[in-house]
């Protein structure tokens, strides 16, 4: 009897609903979804049958399908009427968030783009920051975003989601070392400094390594003119250099007024040492016991001059050492160690000796010495 009654009722209601509106307002979407008892996207007689078959049944919380369409706690004719009034209408399925790119927690540019994907086309999309454009199942959100932490809330007809990002401040070029328009060697590196950490750095020549606000560009570079273009997410910069071959050869002594092992060196004039290239460094004239004699050392191009100083004359027939280290422009170093002996002070005029200085002058002489024992009558 229940079945017959229900069938007749359903038939009546179905006929009644033949004139029902097919319009679907977003405002009553929840009602429509409730009326689509079997959740097949269409409100039809099957939903009525499902309700009718549960007339008088006890209800369970969160029952699925739920024949208590109007939610009044019982399945009855009111539910049938509610469904009958919407017969033929389709029910938009709920739209669920699926994915977001870039990943939550990642870093964004201020002009970056965030793309959300839903399982169905979302409606009524609004965002807390930026501009949202919906295209099918996707929503693209564009900035500009404010540098720093970004909490982006996206709301659509069926839900809301919040995404966290860090918005990277734009990086501006500050300086380069070596600076623009100078000479570098094939093996040199160039360090660029930015006001903020740059991203997506590429260079026209060499290899770029980013570390914080710095980018180090290493070669080897080809000798000649170098136009180095650096591109990063926020800009581009071109630097010009002249690349020269790397000097790996240390300076060598090519001449001068004294050589290692020399004897009879004139102790009264400037000593000069000549090198294969321009040098700088520290060179001193020292005694055998490593005391600095105190002569003045000057560097002039590829020459080093040791100039006598009044009161600091060299003793005759005495060994001295020119010691130190010189470097060329490429910092190649050469140790200097020249030992020489000064010439005798003897000028061909017999030296008057006495009992007091005899041992020093005669017995200590490094050259043969003839002593004339004489008398003046």
């Amino acid at each position: 009897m229940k079945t017959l009654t229900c069938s007749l009722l359903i038939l009546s209601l179905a006929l009644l609903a033949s004139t029902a509106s097919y319009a679907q307002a977003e405002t009553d979407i929840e009602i429509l979804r409730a009326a689509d008892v079997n959740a097949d996207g269409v409100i039809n007689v099957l939903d009525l049958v499902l309700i009718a078959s549960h007339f008088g049944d006890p209800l369970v919380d969160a029952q699925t399908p739920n024949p208590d369409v109007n939610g009044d706690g019982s399945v009855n004719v009111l539910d049938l009427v509610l469904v009958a009034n919407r017969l033929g209408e389709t029910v938009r399925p709920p739209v669920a968030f699926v994915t977001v790119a870039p990943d939550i927690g990642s870093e964004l540019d201020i002009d970056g783009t965030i793309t959300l994907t839903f399982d169905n086309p979302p409606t009524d999309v609004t965002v807390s920051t930026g501009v949202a454009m919906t295209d099918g199942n996707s929503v693209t959100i564009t900035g500009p975003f404010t540098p720093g932490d970004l909490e982006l809330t996206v709301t659509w007809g069926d839900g809301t989601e919040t995404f966290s990002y860090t918005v990277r401040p734009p990086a501006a070029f500050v300086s380069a070392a070596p600076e623009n328009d100078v000479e570098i060697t094939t093996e040199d590196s160039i360090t660029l400094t930015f006001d903020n950490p740059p991203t997506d750095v590429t260079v026209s020549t060499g290899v770029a390594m980013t570390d914080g606000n710095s980018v180090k560009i290493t070669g080897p570079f080809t000798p000649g003119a170098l136009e180095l273009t650096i591109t990063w997410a926020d800009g581009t910069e071109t630097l010009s250099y002249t690349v020269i071959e790397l000097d790996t050869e240390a300076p060598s002594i090519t001449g001068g007024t004294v050589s290692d092992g020399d004897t009879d060196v004139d102790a009264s004039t400037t000593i000069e040492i000549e090198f294969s290239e321009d040098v700088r460094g520290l060179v001193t004239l020292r005694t055998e016991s490593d005391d600095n004699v105190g002569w003045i050392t000057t560097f002039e191009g590829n020459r080093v001059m040791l100039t006598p100083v009044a009161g600091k004359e060299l003793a005759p027939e005495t060994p001295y050492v020119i010691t130190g280290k010189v470097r060329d422009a490429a910092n190649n170093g050469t140790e200097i160690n020249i030992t020489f002996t000064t010439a005798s002070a003897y000028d061909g005029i017999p030296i008057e000796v006495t009992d007091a200085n005899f041992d020093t002058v005669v017995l200590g002489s490094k050259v043969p010495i003839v002593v004339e024992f004489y008398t003046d009558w």
Partner: protein
Amino acid sequence: MKPVVTAVALEYRDTFTFAKLDVNTQPQKTGEYNIRGTPTYIVFRDGEIAGAFVGTLPITALAERILGILEIDETE
């Protein structure tokens, strides 16, 4: 005799040094080397006596005598 010594000293200044000691004023070394007459020439090499001779000689002879003691051949 002094011009002779001066001439030899100047001529051979690159070979040996010439020194002179007044026996009247420097008795210590005069006695130490047992000087009996003047001029006496003592040739030292490396602090040791290489040879000695007494008496005046002309320039060439004086030079040859000294070079001979030092075993230096002038023709070399």
